[in-house]
């Protein structure tokens, strides 16, 4: 009997869904961070993404549709990646002691991905569900209100750290897994890629956490960090 082609397709699907999610997050966090340029900038970006410039008003259904697609890809990726998790206590113990003994960078990075991925099962699901069902609340005031008065800041704090680490490390591992960017000297290229991972991680974490801080500032003071009043934040 011929061997099933399913393992190859699942492996490829895991990589493709991961790549799509990582690229999506790279843009998502930049759009979020437009709040660093002030409440007006964030309002413009969130409006533009919901085609305000085209229709003259925001179309929240666009966000709902995009989130449904991303949610589906997220669930598929989680399901595919779970195949690689330790499957029982013995495997978990073996992997953990192996990692501690080896003190090997890439093995530890995989372990980091396991845990950040596990955390996102729950954290990202909450975020995605809210964005899918309440897209009309996205804006400087609505987002700040949600983050401060609906107590989403702890969730976003952990989720931001988890998603940036998971995506940056994931892209690095994806490149090695499929042999992208090997160049003439794959060992040297791997070091360069790893350096890029940490640069991307630091840049995105700094930017995204500063953006979270900017939303918290709006929620607490009713104005952005440039002093512009943000209307519509009512407790």
């Amino acid at each position: 009997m011929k061997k099933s082609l399913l393992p190859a397709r699942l492996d490829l699907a895991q990589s493709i869904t991961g790549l799509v999610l990582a690229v999506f997050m790279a843009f998502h966090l930049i759009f979020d961070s437009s709040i660093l340029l002030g409440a007006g900038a964030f309002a413009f970006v969130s409006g533009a993404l919901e085609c305000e410039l085209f229709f003259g008003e925001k179309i929240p259904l666009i966000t709902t549709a995009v989130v449904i697609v991303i949610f589906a890809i997220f669930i598929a990726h989680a399901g595919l990646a779970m195949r690689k998790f330790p499957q029982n206590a013995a495997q978990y113990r073996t992997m953990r002691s192996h990692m501690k003994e080896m003190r090997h960078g890439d093995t530890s990075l995989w372990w980091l991905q396991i845990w950040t991925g596990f955390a996102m099962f729950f954290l990202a699901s909450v975020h995605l569900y809210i964005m899918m069902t309440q897209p009309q609340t996205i804006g400087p005031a609505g987002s700040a209100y949600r983050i401060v008065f609906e107590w989403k800041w702890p969730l976003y704090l952990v989720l931001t750290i988890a998603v940036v680490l998971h995506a940056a490390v994931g892209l690095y591992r994806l490149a090695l897994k499929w042999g992208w960017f090997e160049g003439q000297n794959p060992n040297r290229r791997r070091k360069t890629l790893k350096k890029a991972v940490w640069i991307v991680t630091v840049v995105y974490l700094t930017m995204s956490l500063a953006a979270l801080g900017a939303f918290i500032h709006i929620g607490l003071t009713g104005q952005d960090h440039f002093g512009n009043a943000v209307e519509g934040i009512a407790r």
Partner: protein
Amino acid sequence: MSNETASAARTLTLRILRHNPQDPASEPRWARYELEEYEGMTLFIALNEIRERFEPSLQFDFVCRAGICGSCGMVVNGRPGLACRTLTSTLPSEITLAPLPAFKLIGDLSVDTGQWMRGMSERLETWIHEQAETDLHALEERMEPELAEQIYELDRCIECGCCIAACGTARMREDFVGAVGLNKLARFRLDPHNARTDADLYELIGDDDGVFGCMTLLGCHDVCPKELPLQTQIAFLRRKMVTVS
């Protein structure tokens, strides 16, 4: 003062995991031995000195003493490596030695990699599969020197087992073929004498016990004493096997 001179004055403490599975009374235990380090000392030399001076029953394997036979693989301070290729001057003064995991323990630092390697070889049929009977009287088919060098590069594997011991996947899932098996298939795939197609290879490694089980932890690549390009070979095979599907 040079580093080598500085290290020559050190007293080394070797902690060795000792156990004899043939003896029902034996329990795994850590034994400590102290040695004066001298210039050029390898772990292989240190182990021989321990056996001669303190512990004649200490079991460990060696044949070539030159990183060619692959017999002296062991876990050195948590990482697999060859005892004969490891200078003590590259290690801290306290050195921990344990047998390679994933293989049958013979005793102390000696493991049976042969049984595992044979199983892998038989499973992947790691030999030339020719379409026609070889004519032993005819001249062998010519090969470009560049191709011969590529094949030779991958053929340098000494089956020491370090890549298996360093692989998180192989440690968790004992049926995983590991880098040694995948490297062998990559080597035979290059060989113009070989008649096996990628579809044939998919039948052998097209699942989670084969190339799709590899989680790209790259422990194999980073500990390989022969510095084989395992990372690129596994990625290459993965691309080829996905193309088959």
